[in-house]
């Protein structure tokens, strides 16, 4: 592809934006250490609200396609998120859904289990909030000086590719720093004509198989009689697969890329790298995986064993709800 772009100092432009996100992805980019100097040496930072002052209208004034690379993190929860996603899509040659929020919804996407009113109730009308007048945010408000607006809160959170076409996906909550560094290296090589970009739509900065494939724990095809919360266990076998010890580990459906960090530290994988290649629905794959370790053929006993996973929806869709086949629970879209 052509990677030239008009720029004041001759360097291609780089942008990063946060929509419905926590800021962790921004920190992860800053965490790449001295690699950040390579970014500076090879790119002109055109727009990066967390790092420098910039106005949306400055971006609007740029010619379409004039930003070479945009890392977009965060899901689309309100009209501002959507507007900027569309704006940056127009202005960018390469738009990357950066991190779990932009790729699949992540923790902000879990709000797709609740209706907008339930969310607003929790934020504005629970004991932790002092709001005696029951004030709620209003999309529009008439001031003496004229009408003012805040972004519109949408009924559900959408992933970036549910709003605009996305060129690449970079999974992880947040993506691991060494993976970010590798992707930046690759883009710089492409700039110098030393490498080619992967095909559009590819997942970058991760593997294709599962966390289980990277996990050194042994699988003995052991079956279990109960699921347990990891904090309730006195002893965790350091070598045996956690799932085979009854600990709900999401490794079997989760994309490799982190190096199986959590299970190596004796914590279950909670799935932050999203679905592995070939997984149609992340939660569905885990339903199959968890069902396969249950040691019972008796419906009543199986139900009893399943009581050990008190919130299967949360367990299986902690990161992937907005990106799943069903996308949002009924209260969210029924209102």
């Amino acid at each position: 592809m052509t990677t030239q772009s008009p720029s004041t100092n001759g360097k291609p432009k780089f942008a990063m934006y946060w929509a419905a996100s926590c800021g962790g992805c921004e920190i992860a980019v800053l965490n790449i250490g001295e690699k950040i100097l390579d970014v500076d040496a090879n790119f002109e930072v055109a727009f990066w609200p967390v790092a420098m002052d910039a106005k949306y209208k400055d971006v609007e004034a740029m010619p379409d396609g004039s930003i070479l690379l945009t890392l977009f993190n965060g899901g689309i929860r309100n009209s501002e998120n959507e507007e900027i996603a569309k704006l940056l899509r127009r202005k960018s040659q390469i738009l990357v859904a950066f991190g779990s929020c932009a790729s699949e919804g992540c923790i902000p996407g879990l709000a797709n289990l609740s209706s907008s009113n339930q969310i607003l109730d929790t934020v504005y009308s629970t004991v932790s909030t002092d709001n005696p007048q029951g004030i709620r945010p209003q999309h529009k408000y008439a001031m003496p000086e004229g009408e003012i607006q805040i972004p519109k809160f949408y009924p559900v959170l959408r992933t970036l590719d549910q709003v605009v076409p996305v060129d690449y996906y970079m999974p992880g909550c947040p993506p691991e720093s060494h993976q970010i560094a590798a992707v930046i290296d690759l883009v710089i090589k492409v700039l110098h004509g030393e490498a080619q970009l992967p095909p559009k739509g590819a997942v970058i900065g991760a593997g294709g198989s599962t966390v289980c494939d990277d996990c050194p724990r042994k699988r003995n095809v052991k079956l279990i009689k109960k699921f347990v919360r990891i904090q309730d266990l006195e002893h965790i076998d350091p070598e045996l697969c956690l799932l085979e010890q009854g600990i709900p580990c999401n490794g079997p459906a989760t994309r490799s890329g982190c190096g199986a960090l959590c299970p190596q530290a004796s914590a279950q994988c909670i799935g932050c790298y999203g679905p592995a290649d070939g997984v149609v629905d992340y939660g569905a794959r885990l339903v199959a995986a968890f069902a396969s370790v249950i040691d019972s053929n008796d419906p009543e006993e199986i139900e009893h064993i399943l009581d050990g996973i008190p919130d299967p929806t949360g367990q299986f869709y902690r990161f992937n709800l907005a990106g799943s086949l069903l996308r949002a629970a009924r209260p969210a879209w029924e209102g």
Partner: protein
Amino acid sequence: MTENFEPTIIGFTCNWCSYRAADLAGTARVKYPPNVRLIRLMCSGRLDPAFVMKALAEGADGVLITGCHPGECHYLEQNYKALRRFLLLRRTLAGMGIEPGRVKLVWASAAEGVRLANEIATMVEEIRALGPLRWPRWHTWNGLFIEEKSRAEGVPA
């Protein structure tokens, strides 16, 4: 509203038992409601939970899964696997607001055409009582935001 509502049910049936049972019901002219669209699998153990989610996401009001009776699966224990998946799937779907009654697992041998027909009739009535599911057709970037499924409230019989 739900009186004229004809539920759409997707049935995933095992080739060796329940698919034949449905066939038998047909040849024996046993009447059962036409609401079920049967999809034949080689065994209930082939049922990927994603099939059920896809069906519900794309317009089904319910999903029926059928397999050989316990102990009679042609691939040994695969129907037990289907049972474990089904029970966990049902709980997961409940967290999405999908009533447990919308997804059912029924065992039926090849000889049980009448029983399967009755099970189907019961399920149709149960789902009629629950009403349409109407999962939204989610639009992606090239379309609108959320559009209610464009289906008439009641499909004329």
